[in-house]
């Protein structure tokens, strides 16, 4: 079986499409996560592939589904956090041979194909549909939702895995070469010779502060709240390994990475896999967990005029994303119980929030909103997952949290200030990403 990237026709990228034709007909039921680690320890049992199998089996068990009933698998085959396998480094064949291999020995270690998963999970004997949603879990989710809606699969696993190798972030691969062609070197986060990854967001945030009279210090309550939420996320890195709060003093004393983006405005790369089980609304009724219905998905494909998007471009794109989400779901901003938009980098979360018009917010309002009660106990929970800030770089805590909140399974992190009925999650970037509206009800 050859796995293709999802065709562009599966994404809802424009306004005017009306209510999603599959609204409420697709549901998330099962959730699975691997343990987190900071880096791969070199052992066969802790490879990214092993984490993937673990997370998938967790999701299957959580949904209470017979693996033989699963007929679909959507995943992102790119698993790097910025760590690349050095060309000169021998591939550990004992690790490779511990699994059933494809023709690429790094499959399951530093990349992941659907073929590798199916070869190593013999219980998935009836999977007939596989597809790649390239980029992150946000991408894979919208592909899987659309696939179930279109009837390509009725019980579909959705997977995102990350590997992180020994060494530093984004300092191997092309970053280790003496020359880098074209404009690649100038793009943020691409190479040692370019600006830090957060540089573009930092520029937008600086302009945001200038335009609206705000300051970086005003981010502190949001950062502290996000880490607090993360420390109540037992699946996350900080909760599992370093249960450290992030106080306002901690945040404000951190060194600059790309001023005004400081160390904690950037996330920490980790090893982790996350998986969900999606199915039709009808089948979900017979499964173990409460269904969480997908009301809509929408994608942003913003075009920037230069190397970096301007604040104006970001604000226009996030507002359009908000309108697309509401139009397809047949709801308004007033219907949102909570939001879990992406935060890696922390300094763009407010662009997503304002684009949604969350709690009536307009451009320039978010940092003032952060000074109010944004906790899970209050009426306006912001990022109850804690996101990457709270649990490490996975780009999927926000989706897990939406499902868990609506299922009432968020544990200590459960929203109590309001009833969590409709949530929204997605990302990554304000100018480009994939977003999903989740609901307790299919209507």
């Amino acid at each position: 079986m050859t796995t293709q990237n999802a065709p562009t026709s599966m994404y809802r990228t424009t306004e005017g499409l009306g209510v999603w034709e599959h609204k409420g007909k697709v549901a998330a039921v099962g959730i699975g996560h691997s343990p987190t680690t900071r880096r791969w320890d070199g052992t066969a049992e802790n490879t990214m592939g092993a984490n993937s199998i673990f997370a998938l089996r967790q999701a299957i068990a959580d949904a209470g589904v017979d693996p033989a009933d699963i007929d679909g698998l959507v995943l992102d085959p790119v698993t790097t956090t910025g760590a690349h396998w050095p060309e000169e480094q021998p591939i550990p064949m004992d690790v490779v041979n511990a699994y059933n291999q494809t023709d690429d020995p790094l499959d399951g270690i530093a990349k992941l194909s659907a073929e590798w998963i199916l070869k190593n999970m013999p219980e998935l004997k009836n999977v007939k549909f596989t597809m790649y949603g390239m980029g992150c879990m946000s991408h894979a989710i919208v592909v899987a939702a659309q696939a179930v809606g279109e009837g390509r699969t009725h019980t579909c696993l959705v997977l995102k895995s990350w590997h992180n190798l020994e060494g530093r972030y984004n300092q191997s691969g092309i970053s280790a070469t003496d020359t880098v062609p074209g404009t690649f070197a100038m793009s943020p986060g691409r190479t040692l010779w370019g600006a830090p990854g957060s540089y573009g967001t930092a520029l937008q945030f600086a302009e945001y502060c200038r335009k609206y009279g705000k300051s970086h210090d005003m981010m502190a309550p949001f950062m502290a709240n996000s880490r607090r939420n993360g420390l109540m996320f037992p699946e996350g890195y900080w909760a599992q390994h370093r249960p450290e709060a992030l106080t306002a003093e901690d945040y404000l004393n951190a060194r600059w990475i790309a001023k005004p983006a400081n160390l904690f405005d950037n996330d920490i790369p980790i090893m982790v896999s996350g998986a969900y089980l999606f199915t039709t609304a009808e089948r979900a009724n017979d499964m173990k967990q409460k269904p969480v219905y997908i009301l809509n998905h929408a994608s942003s494909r913003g075009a920037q005029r230069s190397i970096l998007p301007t604040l104006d471009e970001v604000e226009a794109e996030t507002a359009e994303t908000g309108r697309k989400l509401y139009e397809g779901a047949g709801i308004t901003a007033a219907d949102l119980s909570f939001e879990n938009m992406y935060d890696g980098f922390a300094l763009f979360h407010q662009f997503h929030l304002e684009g949604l018009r969350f709690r009536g917010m307009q451009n320039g309002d978010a940092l003032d909103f952060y000074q109010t009660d944004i906790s899970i106990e209050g009426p306006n929970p912001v990022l109850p997952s804690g996101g990457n800030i709270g649990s490490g770089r996975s780009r999927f805590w926000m989706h897990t949290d939406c499902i868990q909140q609506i299922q009432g399974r968020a544990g200590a992190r459960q929203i109590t200030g309001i009833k969590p009925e409709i949530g929204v999650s997605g990302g990554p970037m304000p100018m480009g990403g994939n977003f999903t509206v989740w609901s307790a009800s299919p209507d």
Partner: protein
Amino acid sequence: MAILISFDIDGTLEVGDPPGVLTMEFVRKTQEAGILVGSCSDRPISSQRAIWEKHGIAYDFAVSKHQLPDVKAKFEADVYYHIGDREDLDRQYALAAGFEFFWPDEALGEPWLPLDGKSS
């Protein structure tokens, strides 16, 4: 002679992530010898304090990586050392702040002791 020693945490101290070669007992003995000790790390300041308090070490300072100049301004000493495991985030910051620098394995030999009459 007054000596101040700043310890990086991750990759330097045994409690770091990754663990380093310097034990907390080593730091305790250094502090008990009358040397001013503290941490300079990318870890949150509150978490640095928590580490010292957990191990019962009476630290003199806990600062972020770029704040060594503040430490030098606050504490009067004849010599200032920073111990860390990274060229860019430890050695370069230390030298720029007017500190002398040791790698963790160099520090194991306590090279500052000959300078300190009380400790020799």
